[in-house]
């Protein structure tokens, strides 16, 4: 088991290194932020002076080695635009992204899973078709549209929610709905399939024959067995949520990493982009590892299967 994990860790390290190198060079291929930082009318001399001071006139290989050396000492550098340590900037934004991703996941699971169960149990009824359409519409709405619609309805017209920003617990509700809607349909579909599969099993008829309330059957037996595919999808969908968070964060002025990434990329603030990519790589790998661990916790068969 430990040799398996050691191999996974090594693979992860190589993957992270590859991603970081790729992003480093791709960014610099397009140029540097010097022109973006200067006012209109900066002369060639002004441009060259600033470029030299920022170190962008050095050969790419030198800049890369410099960056690697800093990375080894766990120094993510300073934002070129804000002149503040990248770590500080990212640390202040990460909690917000976590809140939003969690909120989105809660909405997606909270709506998607029950809908999926009902769709499985009430298969081939009008209710199922209506629910299918409902979650599909949720998934099809682009967040830059659904987001502003939610704001206009609940914040401007009804006045019951804040229209943007971070102002207490209520601020996370609308962004979570906008974000969660993106993956509701996926969770509903996966849950429906998994529950349908379980519904056909022998133990279900046994439990019902015993006189167990159907609701209890679902909760105690079916869901636990259906959990495996739902967990798999969760790990994948978290990645989608983090990606979708970019637009939601922009629309709702939610100060998460997504918004930061978009702005840093446009401004060519290389250290921040590199920092975010590094974090993203770590998170991606950690999530996959976590999913693996959760499997063995939820499904004893996987645990007992041991080293594969």
């Amino acid at each position, binding site marked *: 088991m430990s040799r398996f994990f050691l191999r996974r860790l090594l693979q992860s390290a190589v993957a992270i290194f590859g991603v970081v190198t790729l992003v480093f060079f791709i960014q610099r291929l397009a140029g540097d932020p010097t022109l973006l930082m200067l006012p209109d009318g900066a*002369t060639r001399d002004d441009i060259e002076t600033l470029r030299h001071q920022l170190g962008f006139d050095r050969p790419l290989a030198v800049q890369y080695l410099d960056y690697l050396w800093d990375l080894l000492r766990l120094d993510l550098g300073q934002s070129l635009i804000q002149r503040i340590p990248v770590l500080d900037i990212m640390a202040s934004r990460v909690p917000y992204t976590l809140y939003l991703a969690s909120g989105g996941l809660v909405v997606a699971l909270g709506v998607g899973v029950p809908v999926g169960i009902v769709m499985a149990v009430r298969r081939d009824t009008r209710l199922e078709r209506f629910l299918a359409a409902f979650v599909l519409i949720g998934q099809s709405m682009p967040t830059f549209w659904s987001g502003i619609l939610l704001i206009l309805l609940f914040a401007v017209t009804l006045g019951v929610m804040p229209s943007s920003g971070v102002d207490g617990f209520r601020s996370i509700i609308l962004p979570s709905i906008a974000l969660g809607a993106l993956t509701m349909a996926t969770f509903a579909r996966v849950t429906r399939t998994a529950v349908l599969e379980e519904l056909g099993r022998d133990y279900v008829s046994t439990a019902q024959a015993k006189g167990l309330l159907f609701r209890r059957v679902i909760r105690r037996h079916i869901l636990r067995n259906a959990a495996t595919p739902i967990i798999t999808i969760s790990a994948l969908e978290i990645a989608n949520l983090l990606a979708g968070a970019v637009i939601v964060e922009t629309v709702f002025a939610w100060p998460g990493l997504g918004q930061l990434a978009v702005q840093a990329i446009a401004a060519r603030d290389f250290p921040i982009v590199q920092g975010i990519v590094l974090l993203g790589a770590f998170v991606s790998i950690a999530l996959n590892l976590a999913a693996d661990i959760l499997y063995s916790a939820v499904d004893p068969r996987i645990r007992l299967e041991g080293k594969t």
Partner: protein
Amino acid sequence: MKRWSRSLGFAALAAAMAFSGAVTAKDLFVVDLVQEPASLDPHVQWNPDSYFVYRNIFDNMVTRDDEGKIVPQVATSWRQVDDSTVEFALRSDIKFHDGSALTAEDVVFSVKRITNPEFKSPQLGQFNSIVDAIATGPATVQLKTNGPYPVLLAQLVKLSIVPRAHVTQVGNDRFNQSPMGSGPYKFVSIQRGVKTTLARNDAYWGPKGVFTTVEFHAVPDPATRVANLRSGKADLIVTINPDLAAEIKADNRIKVLSVLSERVAYFHLNSLTGPTADLRVRQAIAHAIDKQGIIDGLMGGYDKPVATMMAPVHVGYVEGFKGYAYDPAKAKALLKEAGITPNTNFTLFTSPTFDQRIVQAIQQMLIEVGMKVSLTSSDFAGWLKRAQSSPAEFGEMTFSRWSCGCQDADGVLFPLFHSSSSWAKSRDAEMDKALEAGRSSLDLNVRLQHYKRVHEIAEATLPLVPLYQAAILYGARKELRWRPTPNESFFLNRMAWDG
């Protein structure tokens, strides 16, 4: 089951406490910016989101009043000692927010700091005509320029005075995170990505602000900014487009504030290589563009067409130029004369930063007179690079807007027209001479004569087609009394409430 829901409740409570909701007091003023200020050190970043905030924390050598005239601020008076030296007398009653006095030493320090290449200020180019700063007394400073420099005062409008002792003591990095100046508002705190908070400086030497506390929120989406204004979350929002302006006008609790700024939109043409090197082609392009049509049809009618690259707010603006009238028939004739066929390729390079409706409208107008114009787009940094590249790499044409932040012809015409500038895609020896003469005379009338010549040559040779003076639109609560200025200044202590 009960235990589970209780821990959920605790988690929610913890989350709520972590958010620490904002207090909406009546004397809190909320401004929605596009992005958070990149830096509050006034000598670092040059972008509106930053200087909207830091111009209130710091005082500048001189400033512009609401009419656009340069008036005293830190400097009370000035006199030209000789062609390259100006002596400034400073106010003696200015105190930084920590109580220390602002003296000539601070002015000298500020000038030297921003002009030091090792400080890496992107604003360096605006001040590097100042070659020395000397404190000739506790309240007098002499600035030496690189030859006669008539734009000095216009540039000093943008020079903030920082406290020498404090900056030296805490270092640039700490000063950047916690700036301290002498202005009408003090820096209180910054919650990265969320808001920047300022508090009124009750000991300010000049006109005090009306608001006790001011928060600047970063709201990247313009529709959300308008929603914030409508829901009462924001009192003033910046950068709205004409469509959103119409939405604001429909709500009688809020209003649109607009000003014709010093930003001028233009259509830059390649006069050196390619099919646009033929003057007749450039003339045809000028006749093909319906400026008023674009302004009325796409931009809500706020902007104003211009015949030269200057507007009345610029020093160097000269009346009497007519420009090229909208005449598609004449455009077609000129193109035929120049031998342009439907197979001649024209490339219009652009970037999403520019209003694509305008770019596409211009493209369409050119297509209608028989030009084959294709659009190519890149990110803004890519656009900047191409705009300043060699004529061959530039292509044929591009749409852009120009502002020097100085309201002076030298900051606009010199970089666009002088052959030494990487922006210029034209070459005219007489134009060069007129531009050089315009920037080396301290006599306003002499300068205007030279710039008149520049406008004449520009109208005759069409290095670019001047389009319109851009209007800047803001949204505000109906009760706000504020007059936005052409140089997009943002002085909180010039805002007040009605009644």
